[in-house]
């Protein structure tokens, strides 16, 4: 079913940003539907922060454009800022202001009517559990509480679109759960959220996601679709000297891709039944001790590693 303009909250078209000779974001195109929780997933330096900065109107794109709620960030970045809430990766609140003073400052900047503030604050405090700390200086909060305050400040004006840059980075597990609860709650109320993360295990949470690698989208879709689209089958092998084993097995004719996951080796082959025994005996021939060997359903991480390898192979081919 084709999506109409009304359903699209964010539309990025060939969004590109250069810093000198470096292409930080290279022709990014994707759309996010209204009320969707969209992920920008990728390792450090993939271009997540640069993308979110361009979407929030604080960094002009080198070329391309993005529309948020129909408004172009190139033509009218200031108008975009009324609709969005952006939370930068670095804690961007005033450490020498208290929790309440920070919230009041942002409420003023977004002209939240005085009459509505009390109710909104109550709600935000309910979510964030920051109520008892309202008179504490923001600089004296723990990392997790700082992030929750940042998110609260972003939400004080009830934005249409939420742009969060690695909100859970370096945050303790409990605060991390709180943060996700808040985000899910906002999305349930119809807010559109774009959240970046470098944690692969958080990728499952998104309705849809774009996996970024070196400034390009290498995978785009819902977690299920991405896993389903995966060609080949996965062998999970427990083996000693796992890194050398990966090196050795990578050259094997039946192996499409091999990657280390903790102390296990994930090997993609086109058919587990056909190629599995060959891979196992090859490993044993090279002197490795295989203590576990089974077929498994590939996860999102397998998809990402597969896509990165493919993208790098393509890039190498382009250069050659």
């Amino acid at each position, binding site marked *: 079913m084709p999506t109409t303009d009304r359903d699209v909250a964010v539309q990025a078209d060939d969004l590109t940003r250069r810093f000198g000779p470096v292409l930080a974001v290279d022709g990014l195109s994707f759309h996010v539907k209204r009320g969707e929780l969209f992920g920008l997933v990728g390792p450090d330096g993939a271009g997540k922060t640069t993308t979110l900065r361009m979407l929030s*109107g604080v960094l002009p794109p080198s070329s391309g454009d993005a529309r948020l709620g129909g408004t172009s960030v190139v033509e009218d970045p200031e108008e975009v800022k*009324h609709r969005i809430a952006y939370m930068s990766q670095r804690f961007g609140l005033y450490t020498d*202001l208290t929790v309440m003073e920070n919230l009041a400052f942002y409420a003023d*900047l977004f*002209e939240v009517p005085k009459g509505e503030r009390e109710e909104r604050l109550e709600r935000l405090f309910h979510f964030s559990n920051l109520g008892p700390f309202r008179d504490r200086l923001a600089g004296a909060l723990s990392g997790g509480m700082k992030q929750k305050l940042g998110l609260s400040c972003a939400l004080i004006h009830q934005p249409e679109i939420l742009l969060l840059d690695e909100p859970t980075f370096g945050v303790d597990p409990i605060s991390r759960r709180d943060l996700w609860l808040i985000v899910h709650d906002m999305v349930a109320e119809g807010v559109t959220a774009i959240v970046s993360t470098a944690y692969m295990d958080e990728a499952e949470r998104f309705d849809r996601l774009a996996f970024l690698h070196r400034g390009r989208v290498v995978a785009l879709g819902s977690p299920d679709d991405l896993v389903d689209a995966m060609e080949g089958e996965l062998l999970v092998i427990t083996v000693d000297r796992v890194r050398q084993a990966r090196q050795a097995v990578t050259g094997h004719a039946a192996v499409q891709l091999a990657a280390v996951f903790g102390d296990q080796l994930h090997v993609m082959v086109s058919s587990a039944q056909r190629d599995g025994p060959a891979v196992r005996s090859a490993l044993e021939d090279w002197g490795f001790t295989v203590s576990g060997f089974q077929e498994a359903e590939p996860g999102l991480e397998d998809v990402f590693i597969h896509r990165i390898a493919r993208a790098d192979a393509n890039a190498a081919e382009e250069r050659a």
Partner: protein
Amino acid sequence: MLNRTRLLAVARKEVIQLRRDIRSLIMAFVLPVLLLVLFGYAISWDVQNIETGVLDRDGSARSRELIDAFRSSGYFDIRKQLEDEDEIDRLLDRGGVRIVLVIPTDFSRDVGAGRPARLQAIVDGSDANTATIALGYARAIVQSYSRNVLFQGERVTTPIESQTRVWYNEELLSRNMIVPGLVAVIMMIIAAMLTSLTIAREWERGTMEQLAATPVGRGEVVLGKLLPYVAIGLIDVVVVSVIGVVLFDVPFRGNAALLMILSTAFLIGALGLGIFISAVSRSQLLATQMAMILTFLPAFLLSGFMYAIEVMPTALEAITYLVPARYFLVVTRGIFLKGVGVEVLRVQGLLMIAFAVVGLAAAIRVFKKEIAR
């Protein structure tokens, strides 16, 4: 175009931050008073009670009369009667005295016989300024003494009599020059030092990125940040003026309202310049250094506060025309000492307003709601 709620939000935030930052508070309220007291007491170009030594070889009534003339002038403090010439060197070297008067053996005999008598003054020239002034005083005293001798106390009329009268600073006290000048210098320091930090600090701490993603306009940020500092600056003008008048007896003859109005204009210009520097440098350290070089030093050295502009080399004098403090100094000294009003300070007044407009426009123009290029 400017939204009042947002502008006041920025101003209020800035006040809260200032209140909690002891370094800024000291710079805003303690430093001006400290500078005033320090400069008011320490800098003085007035030369009085010059430590003096006398080597009286004559030892006559005449020579004692001459020494008395020096003593009673008030400029010379006769500290030491020397016995022989070797002592002169030692005393001058140790800084015990700055000038030594040598009266030769036949001083009274020569004077009595109507022959020109010789008198020697040996001056410590290491402080050239004091030395020149001391010599001038000595010459004047000797001259009036020889006139007395010549006419034996009779009243005489010289063909041309010059009478000097000093206006505005009747006693030629240098603190009367310094205190009004310091009002201007302190404004410049406060404005540049405090504001050069404010925007740079937001870039450094990452709060600017967050701020840039809100609908706040750049005019609102710049003006909101400026307001509290204008208030601080005006408080400083009042405090420094009151201390100057009460503690240092500096006359205040002009219109206080005019001083406040022109100070406000000057402050806005200086603050705008500070914010401009802050927005360009984006680092607190660089901002402070730029503020020192671009605002503090010129205000201090090239405004006519420390050194008279008239005696500067031509190239340097040309630069002083670009130093806003130069014109504000005319304003403060004019209002304090001369009691002049708008009719006299029209040009300076217009220049203050121009400075305010240019400073503010530059600040707003250069301030961008975009993160690093």
